[in-house]
Structures are given as C-alpha cells and as structure tokens.
C-alpha cells in the first residue's frame, strides 16, 4: 500500500519534471520565497500558469514564512509569502530597504484539532472554552466531566491528555493562538498570540512542522494537536467538531471555511484575523496567507509579468485551490486583492 503510493508519487514527480514547458533564456525569471503552507498550492497554480503563459519562469522556495520575510527584505527575491502579514517592525525594515510594500491575500486555509483516541469513532465535539482549558493544562484527562458533557453517548477513555504543539515558529501557531486569545481571556492574558509562545500545559510536547505534530499525535494515545486542514485531509487524521460562536458544532471543510471567511470581506494586512467568526456553520479556526510585493518596481517588463501573475493567482488561479485542499478566496476578497495589486508602479 505504502510502497505503491510512494511509487505513484515518484512517478508523478518524474512526469511533472518532463512535462515542464521548455525554459528559454529570454524568459522572465520570477523568484519567491516563504511560507511552506503556500507551497502545495503555489506549485500547482504556477505550473498551470506557465502552461498557458509563455515567457515566464517562476521559482518558489518553501523556506518558511520567517525566511521569506528576510529574503524579501534583503531584496533577493521578487516576492515573499507569509502566513501572517508583516508586523510593524518588519514593515519598517522593509520600507527602509525598498519603499512601500503591498500585501495581498493569496490562499485561505483552516486548522483542525487532531487527536488520538483509540476506539472512539466519529468526531469528538469540543467547545471553545474546553479547548482553551485543555491547552492551558486545566483539563488533564479525556473522561473529564466537561468533555464528556459535550459528547453524550461517546465512551471517552481515562487517558491523560498530551498537548502537541509546533516547536518551530509558525503562522499555524499564530492563527491557533489568535483563536484561543479570542475565546479565552485567561489565554490572552497568560499566553497571548504569536508565531511561537510559551506553552502553559504541564504535559505538552513540541514537534517540528505539520508532519511532526501529526506524527506525534498519531503515535501517542491521548494526544491532541493542531494541524492544517489540507494536511489532515490528505493523511486521514481524526479531528474534532468545534463549537463556533453561533453554538453549532462544525467540521472543517471547504464550505464551512468559506462561510467563515465571507463574514469579513474587508480583510486587510492590518485587520486580517478571521478566527471565531459569527454566522451559521462558519468554522472557527481559519486564516489567510499573504504575498508581499514591492510597490516600486525597477524593471518595467518584469513588473508587468509579476502583476499579471498575481492578478491571475488571486482570481482565476484560485480554482486550483480546491484540488490541493485549500479554499478559494471568496469573491469579495479577490476584489480586495486585485485592487491592492493595482498599486504596483514601475
């Protein structure tokens, strides 16, 4: 099973390598770096773009959001990508390097709460308060009355809860802690929102990357952790139904994430949080990933290519999002992104 899948994957890679349209020396070279969250979507979308548009070579390096911001600020890449927009200090540094920065939302994703409870089928239900208290280390066993109260008829085992979080600094952690800060004042006060935090639960461990967190959760009965939706769907991980602000228990899906995102059409780099949104069936833990571009471009023909590419990426290119388990940007957000891109000057 595993072997055949591996073979299939490698065959696909080989096929992809051969199917790449022939590069010519006259092609415009566009390089980008950053978020690993965007990578599967970018590689799919850029591949399609190149198939239909000649004269362009796009090279995206998935080195992480932090690295992306650094490379962008150092002007070694044409665009950067980050799961969280630039903060004040980062914006200042970038502006000092090359003038104003444009930031546009390029991808929409969600996070699920993955867990490992042997012999429990279906999706365990969790409320925002219970989830926050689990990550605060206040609920320590799975058969706690507060968890059992949400899951009538489910036999929860008497297992200690082990919290698994990201060991590397990540946008995924930012979105998750943003959610916990919104739903729990205690979390907001004690821990806060950041790409990496000091985790308060006594029984907690860190793991690197989504695959690390998923691996530890899968390995350890009683474990609970947060991973990206795309990752969870592709790897068949059990995840919880979360209670949203409306009181509904919601599973993450393309539909429920889009419902949440549609609640905030005026998303901008300074007002980007879409966690814990109101509305029926909106999934509570979602977020955008952002691309960074310079407003002032030196090379005129390159600037045109870059603008065409990103205009396509935030509109027609979004149709490839579903194929890799991302969620296409809602129409109103696409319009916001297009408007921002019009600010590119050369």
């Amino acid at each position, binding site marked *: 099973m595993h072997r055949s899948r591996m073979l299939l994957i490698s065959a696909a890679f080989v096929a992809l390598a051969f199917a790449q349209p022939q590069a010519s020396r006259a092609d415009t070279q566009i390089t980008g770096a950053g978020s690993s969250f965007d990578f599967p979507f970018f590689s799919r979308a850029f591949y399609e773009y190149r198939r239909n548009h000649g004269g362009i070579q796009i090279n995206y390096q998935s080195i992480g959001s932090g690295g992306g911001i650094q490379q962008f600020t150092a002007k070694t890449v044409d665009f950067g990508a980050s799961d969280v927009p630039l903060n004040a200090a980062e914006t200042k540094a970038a502006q000092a390097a090359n003038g104003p920065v444009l930031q546009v939302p390029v991808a929409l994703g969600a996070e699920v709460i993955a867990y490992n409870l042997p012999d429990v089928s279906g999706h365990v239900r969790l409320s925002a308060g219970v989830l926050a208290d689990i990550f605060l280390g206040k609920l320590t066993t799975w058969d706690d009355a507060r968890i059992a109260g949400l899951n009538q008829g489910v036999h929860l085992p008497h297992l200690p809860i082990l919290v698994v979080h990201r060991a*590397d600094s990540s946008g995924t952690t930012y979105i998750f802690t943003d959610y916990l800060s919104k739903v729990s004042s205690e979390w907001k006060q004690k821990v806060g929102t950041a790409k990496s935090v000091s985790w308060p639960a006594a029984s907690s461990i860190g793991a690197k990357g989504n695959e690390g967190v998923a691996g530890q959760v899968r390995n350890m009965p009683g474990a609970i952790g947060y991973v990206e939706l795309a990752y969870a769907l592709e790897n068949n991980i059990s995840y919880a139904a979360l209670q949203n602000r409306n009181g509904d228990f919601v599973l993450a899906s393309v539909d429920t994430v889009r419902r949440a995102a549609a609640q905030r059409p005026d998303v901008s780099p300074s007002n980007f949080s879409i966690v814990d949104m109101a509305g029926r069936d909106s999934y509570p833990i979602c977020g955008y990933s952002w691309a960074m571009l310079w407003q002032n471009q030196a090379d005129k023909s390159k600037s045109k290519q870059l603008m065409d590419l990103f205009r396509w990426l935030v509109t027609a290119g979004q149709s490839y999002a579903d194929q890799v388990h991302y969620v296409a940007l809602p129409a109103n957000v696409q319009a916001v992104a297009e408007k921002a891109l019009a600010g590119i000057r050369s």
Partner: protein
Amino acid sequence: MATESIEIASLPRTTTTAVRLRGAQLADRLVVGFFGLAAWLVLLVVAALFVTLAIAAWPAIKTVGWPALHSALWDPNNGKFGVLSFVFGTLVTSGIALLLAGPVGIGAALVLAEVAPKRLAGPVAMLIELLAAVPSVVFGIWGLFVLAPVMRGAIEPALARTLGFLPLFQGYFFGVGILTAGVLLAIMILPTIAAITRDIFEAVPAHQREGMLALGATKWEVLARAVIPYARSGIIGALVLALGRALGEAIAVAMVIGNKPAISASLFSPGYSLASVVANEFTEATGQQYLAVLVGIGSLLFVLSMLVNVAARLLVWSVGRSQSAARA
C-alpha cells in the same frame, strides 16, 4: 633535518647524484609544506568558525548576556531567551547515552577482539560499522515510530514499578522525553565506541598477552590486567568522540526529546537540547535578536564540546601519569 644535511654533504658528489638529490630535497620541501599547510588549514577553519559565530552572536551576548545562562524561560516573541533548559537537556541526554553505550560498546569490542571466533567477529564488526553509517534522520524516524511506543508501553512502566520511588522515574509516560532521547543517542554512539575500542584492543601487542599467559593467568586476568590497562587512554578517546557526537546531535534528538523548554527531575518528562532548538527554530526565526540568540546557542554548544574535550584530555593525561607513577 640537520643530520640529514650532514649525511647528504658527506656523500660523494657527482653531478647526476647532486641533481637527483636536489630534486629529492625539493620533493621533501613540497611534502612538508603541503602537510604543514593542511595542519594550519584545520586550525584556521576552527578559528574562522569560532570568530564567525562570535560575531554573529555578538548582539545576543551584548543584550541577553550571562543572565540567559541561568534562566530556563524561553519565549522568543517576548524577548525571553533563557537557555538553561537546553544546556540541561544536552548534558543529561548525552550523559545517559554515554552511561548506557559505554559499557555495552566496550564489552562488545572486547568480545569481538578477544573472545569470539574470527569467523563470527568479522561479520559482526562489519555490521557495527554499518550501523555507524546510518544517517541520523533515519535514527530519528525509527526513534519516533518504534522506540517511543516501546518506551511508553514497556520500558517506562517497568522503570516506574521498580525504581518509581526515585524522582527520576515518576510522572506520566509519553514515550518521548529526556530518557528516550538518551536511549536513542546511546544506540547512535554505540557503533562509534565499539568500532574504535575494538581496533584499540587489536592494537595491543601480542607480547602483553603472552607475558600474562606465561605467568599462568586466566583469560579474564589477561583482559583485566594486560589488555584493558594498555588500551585505557584509547578507550577514553573513543568515549570522548562518541560524547561529541551525542552532544551535537540535532535532528534525531529533536524528533524524540519532546521539544519542551523545561527542567524536570523526571527522566520521563519532555525536554530540549541546544542542537535541536537551533534545528527547529532557525528557519522561522525573525528579528535580529532572535537569530543572534540562536547563533549564540550554536557557539555555546561549540564551547561546551570544547570543554568536554579538554576535560577528557586532562583525564587521559592524569590516567597516563598515575599509570607511569604506579609502574615506577
């Protein structure tokens, strides 16, 4: 050099030998020059490494400084850079590894070199050397998916039942933590210890053993009184080399140590190490200070390894001295 030139000068001088000699002298000088350069290059690389690390870490040393060494609070986004838990995790996991792998490795080497029939010893020794060539990420994956469940399911409960009165063996079993990292490191450094000590035992001259045997010693007495004392400084050298690998291991440790910046008395609890925090956080670190602190952690590891090396040298030296004193 001086004696050589006298000898050369006293040789009969025909033109052809003179030419040949001049050629030989040139080759001599070239070889000496080349090896000298190689030796200096090694020193230069070490010095350059240290200087580069120190320069890159300077902002961290200046702002965070010594207090970081006695704080275990690690919260980079709020400017809290306590590295004590990393130092603790590094030293404890490496210590456990050495404690477990040392006796086993030396024992295996003794059996392979002295006891086992050659037919068996050859293939087994080859397997051990093969183990030394396994990349650490493979050890890490194995540790996470095979070792950790075994630790959680069997070894840690057994330790808690028998030695649970010690604070070292109390608390929940997660399968990942300080103890698992130590055991994994032990497995990783075992081949280094076994392979080197085996070579050292084989290098013990036969007359040492024959002398003991001639005095009517048993096999055990030969090993304990002739072979092991002769090989002692070599064994310590092998242990130091293995310890160096354990101290610096990043990826495999990061996968099984639990990556929690905390100091706990229990070996079952998760911890963190210097090398693994750099491996985990370097790619996503933003901001000058955060990056500088991570480079500083790298330099700290460098200094720690050097201190361990110096301590081991001193140990070898003092052992050598006490041995010669005993003989005199």
